[in-house]
């Protein structure tokens, strides 16, 4: 009677995940384990890309954006559209994905977030409602069918790190995963540059440290909020564009990344952006390692349990310098 159409598609997607790792199980041997850890590098890249945007909006504006996953999904759809309409290369669609989602993010900030400022639970709920609406609208426009995006031919294939004497690969990593981590690190670098080396970044940091004081000193805080939120959403869009060819594109695809990105932000803390890098490395690699020894769903539960314990003892995240209040 209750039809959870969306969630059924979602669970299907999860089930694919589960079978993917099930076949990898077997005896523990060094090479497969090394491969798994290198695959983990790819996960780290995805986590870093998705967590970065969240960390910025949470760190500066103290708002929880539960629609972040949907912005990732929007970025993926922008890439899909660009590719199907203009046969564009995936790399070229990245700026469009950034701009498109940043635009939607700006509209969201103006219409929803701004009205609920200072009420974190309400913001959280509103963004959750927004995520349902975005999913619904995308489903209306593109239908719930899975869409596929082609990855560019020049970054397909694997980088062989160790081979047997006859040339069969033992340890390898796909170029695409290297590409993801490169993009993620690049975005981290650009964000760090913007935050610490530009006047605008200084204003953003001022707002993050003390909003009222920044306002008194003439910082246009509402403009900073708008730009920060749009930038965070834009980063989610880039993540979506890059992820799109890794898996299929579908309306509920973002939900999973949302939870994982939050785990990263909670682990790393939002005080320093390097925390996001460390957090995604920790979560991505421990996920990959546990998934190798046991299986993927168990790994998810164990990482979650670890994060819950972490919140008890290091609520500000692992990589935050202790401050005196």
């Amino acid at each position, binding site marked *: 009677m209750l039809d959870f159409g969306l969630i059924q598609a979602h669970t299907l997607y999860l089930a694919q995940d589960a079978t993917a790792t099930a076949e990898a199980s077997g005896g523990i041997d060094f090479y497969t384990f090394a491969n798994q850890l290198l695959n983990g590098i790819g996960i780290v890249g995805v986590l870093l890309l998705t967590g970065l945007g969240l960390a910025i909006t949470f760190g500066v504006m103290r708002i929880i954006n539960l629609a972040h996953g949907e912005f990732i999904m929007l970025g993926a759809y922008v890439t899909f559209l660009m590719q199907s309409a203009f046969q564009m290369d995936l790399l070229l669609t990245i700026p469009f994905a950034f701009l498109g989602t940043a635009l939607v993010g700006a509209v969201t900030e103006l219409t929803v977030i701004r009205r609920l400022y200072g009420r974190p639970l309400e913001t959280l*709920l509103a963004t*959750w409602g927004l995520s349902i609406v975005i999913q619904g609208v995308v489903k209306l426009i593109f239908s719930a069918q899975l869409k596929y995006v082609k990855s560019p031919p020049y970054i397909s294939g694997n980088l062989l790190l160790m081979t047997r004497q006859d040339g069969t690969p033992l340890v390898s990593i796909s170029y695409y995963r290297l590409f993801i981590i490169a993009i993620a690190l690049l975005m981290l670098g650009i964000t760090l540059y913007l935050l610490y080396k530009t006047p605008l970044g200084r204003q953003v940091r001022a707002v993050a440290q003390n909003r009222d004081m920044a306002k008194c000193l003439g910082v246009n805080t509402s403009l900073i909020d708008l730009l920060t939120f749009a930038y965070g959403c834009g980063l989610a869009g880039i993540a979506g564009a890059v992820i799109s060819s890794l898996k299929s594109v579908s309306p509920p695809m973002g939900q999973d990344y949302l939870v994982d990105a939050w785990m990263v932000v909670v682990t790393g803390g939002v005080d320093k952006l390097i925390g996001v890098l460390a957090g995604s490395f920790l979560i991505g690699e421990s996920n990959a390692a546990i998934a190798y020894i046991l299986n993927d769903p168990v790994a998810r539960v164990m990482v979650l349990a670890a994060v819950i*314990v972490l919140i008890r003892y290091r609520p500000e995240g692992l990589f935050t310098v202790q401050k005196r209040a």
Partner: protein
Amino acid sequence: MTQVLDGVQRSTFPVKLFITAGIVFLIFFILPFLVGVFQTALISKLLLFGALAISLDLVWGFTGILSFAHGVFFTLGGYAMAYYLKLNLSSTNNNYGVELPDFMVWNGLEQLPWFIAPLKFFPIAILAMVLVPAVFAYIIGWFIFRSKVSGVYITIITLAISSALTTLFISQQAYTGGTNGITDVAVLTLLGIEITDINLYWVILIFTTLVLAGSLWLTRSNLGLILRSINENERRISYLGYDVASFKIFIWTLSAAIAGIAGGLFVPLNRFISPVYLAVAFGTQVVIWVAIGGRGTLFGPLIAALLLGQVQNYAERVTQDWQLIVGILLLVVVLFLPKGLMGLVPRINPDRLLMPSPNPSAGYVQARLLDWFTPLQGAFRTVQEWLIRGKRRH
């Protein structure tokens, strides 16, 4: 003196409310005779969802803990009951003529896992139905509420729990029945009597009424006052010497236990339980009932669950995009109607019947009254002092 007290008691005893509640209860009681079998089953289900919504309202509306995991507690209770019913399926009714549930046979299990086997016995199943969600909630609550993080963390953790457990339950096919969950369960029998749908309806009706009445009593007690103060200003209430975390953990655990019982009652009615109810979408549904009904009203979430469930039942035959409509509804409620639909109908708000209403105009009148009394108090004190001085003179 006693006359005065009698009068006070009579005036504060909400006669009208009790009469109304009695009539509503009676209407619901005879409802199965008025509507068809299908509607009876639907309303039983919605009453359970209503109880679930009330349990969420206790933690969210009163204490300010927003949770997407109430579907998880509900489902955990449900699985406890489903194992009991599945294990008590006579071996002739079982597809494979063995004691082992069919999904375990399919997945190559030779014997019952030790952690499922005790659920064959009714008292243990009933205990598990309450305790598994409650203990689970207690553990999470102990870690989160004892920490110094803000309230939004618990919401994200509940989201993560919901999504992680969904994956886990789907992947552990041999133990949980995977995506299909536990289906084809036995009919619930108590003391050798088969519980028919109509009897089940009454059991559910009584359960929901008890949950509603208990929650009303709880939130109007001193405990309820403390919970509401935690929601209003957590720091201040902790400065007053209350251990905020303990209160939060208590209400969180209690709420999970209620959700678990609701889930346990859901299984004999629905005849199956599956990870659909674990998933974030169902948790969101519960949140939406509470948001739309009105947080902190208890009646609102129950009514919203009943009405939205009915609407949904018909809407889903017409449109595929019920979720989209729900999302829009949620956005509108959050942005423009923070008190939910109960905020629109203050006249039948039962809060007013039971306790002084918290609306600002009442406070204004009280303030005016106090202002008016202040000079009188001064005069009174002068008279008192004058009298005391007079006594000393003697």
